[in-house]
């Protein structure tokens, strides 16, 4: 296997055979076929998923393709494959969350991985154990991946220094929530595919997507801006000035405070939850006023393009971000987002643990 290869100046392959065998090998004929054969194997090797930036455009598209295979698994009578049998995934949630944790745990179980659950409320964290001691203890039990949610931005990055497992960011402070962005991209791609009678779009080019709400405190917005723009979509952030991040210079987005003026050109309206727990009273006069200015009411939904899509990462507060009746319109992809969450998280776990990245 270590036989040296002699390069030729033409860019064609050397004449040396694979081992000590036949010297007749020539480079001209088969190279093209070979490249095509390997086309599906762009090895985007990441060990952790902390930010959408870890994946980049190619990595996101690879997760999309992988998710297609898991979407088929999810439709089976037994929606389970043995792909990660013998692997252990620990979910470490230092902040309350049910849906993301359940989604990851369901994904891991459908890959036949074993699941360990750690929630702050019922654990040593309330007794004063540090994050470092907590994750080192869990890591010492022998796990392959740690799915972590933490109230501090950057906590998962710190954790990568302390554990041997692959670390997956399930939401850190106001920083990022990459798997949410991936499932959102997948959900939009799926809706476009259905609209195009099964033809999968190469990316999200040509779409105009508004992200509406508390941009400032939203990790979902940060991950989604990165993911949507990486796939070629145009993103407009819509929020009252008090809920807009202070510095936006490096963001590839436009901003507005006026939702009504932008409604007519949107392909996707992405509503964020007003995170009452992160807001001081000073940022918003009242939730009613927010609903009046920024909520997706029936009148605003009527002003949208006919095929515009409505999305929300949940939990959805009806009567604030969205009117109760709009949430149930066919344009609303909210339940698809939840379903696709499991599928995309299967793809992420398999990508990190199974597809050869480690």
């Amino acid at each position, binding site marked *: *296997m270590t036989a040296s*290869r*002699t*390069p*030729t*100046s*033409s*860019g*064609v*392959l*050397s004449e*040396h*055979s*694979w*081992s000590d*065998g*036949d010297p*007749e*090998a*020539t*480079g001209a*004929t*088969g*190279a093209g*076929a*070979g*490249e095509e*054969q*390997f086309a*599906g*194997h762009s*090895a985007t090797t990441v060990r952790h998923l902390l930010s959408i930036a870890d994946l980049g455009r190619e990595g996101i598209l*690879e997760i999309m393709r*992988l998710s*297609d*295979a898991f*979407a*088929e*698994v999810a439709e*089976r009578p*037994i929606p*389970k*494959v*043995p*792909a*990660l049998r013998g*692997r252990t995934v620990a979910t470490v949630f230092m902040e309350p969350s049910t849906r993301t944790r359940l989604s990851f745990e369901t994904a891991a179980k459908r*890959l036949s991985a074993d699941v360990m659950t750690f929630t702050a409320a019922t654990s040593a964290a309330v007794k004063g154990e540090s994050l470092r001691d907590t994750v080192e203890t869990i890591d010492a039990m022998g796990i392959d991946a740690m799915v972590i949610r933490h109230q501090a931005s950057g906590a998962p990055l710190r954790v990568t220094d302390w554990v041997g497992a692959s670390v997956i960011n399930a939401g850190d402070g106001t920083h990022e929530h990459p798997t949410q962005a991936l499932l959102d991209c997948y959900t939009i791609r799926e809706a476009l595919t259905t609209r195009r009678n099964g033809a999968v779009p190469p990316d999200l080019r040509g779409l105009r997507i508004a992200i509406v709400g508390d941009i400032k405190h939203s990790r979902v917005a940060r991950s989604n801006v990165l993911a949507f723009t990486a796939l070629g979509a145009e993103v407009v952030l819509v929020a009252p000035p008090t809920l807009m991040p202070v510095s936006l210079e490096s963001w590839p987005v436009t901003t507005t405070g006026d939702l009504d003026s932008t409604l007519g050109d949107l392909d996707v309206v992405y509503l964020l939850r007003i995170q009452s727990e992160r807001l001081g009273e000073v940022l918003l006069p009242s939730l009613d006023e927010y609903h009046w200015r920024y909520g997706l009411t029936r009148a605003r939904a009527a002003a949208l393009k006919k095929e515009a899509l409505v999305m929300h990462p949940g939990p959805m507060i009806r009567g604030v971000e969205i009117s109760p009746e709009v949430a149930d319109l066919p344009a609303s992809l909210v339940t698809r987002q939840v379903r696709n969450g499991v599928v995309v998280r299967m793809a992420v776990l*398999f990508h990190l*643990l*199974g*597809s*050869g990245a*480690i």
Partner: protein
Amino acid sequence: MADRERSSTRPKGRVFVARTQVMDRDEVRRALVRIAHEIVERNRGLEGVVVIGIQKGGVPLAEQLVAILREIEGTAVPFGTMDVAFYRDDIGMRPVLPEQATDLPFDLTGRTVVLFDDVLFTGRTVRAALDALAELGRASAVQLAVMVDRGHRELPIRPDFVGRNLPTRRDELVEVNEEGVTIGELLVPASEAAR
């Protein structure tokens, strides 16, 4: 699929270099016609028979086989494709990625499944395919058809229908495409080697 087994374990940057063509397009077609007749003979017709191509090399061949079966028996045999990546036994040891989602638009229960792959090599792909099949339904029988049996089995798996028995060296690579069957090997392209 056996090709992929080899290709995916390849050291980075190597590409397939064809050396000898062992079957041309017509020979592949003739082998498929013979296999089609053997399938009809073995099963006394095509009642309950379905054909499943294994991603990705088995799929185009299985499609051709279905067309030939239609010509000789006048029956449209149900056709599906299967990707066995999630059932492989070397996940985590090398890059394993599915080519395309499994697509079986019929119930397997009670059917006679003809699994089709391009190259039978170690038998591990077929092992994975059998596991996948078992989870998708209870076929009454599974038969294995391959275009090339190149030997070097690592599991007790035997094909029912073979296009060509082809003795190979273990480190060679067999490629099957619409142009025929080629033996070759993996080499470092000069552009990579120069680095």
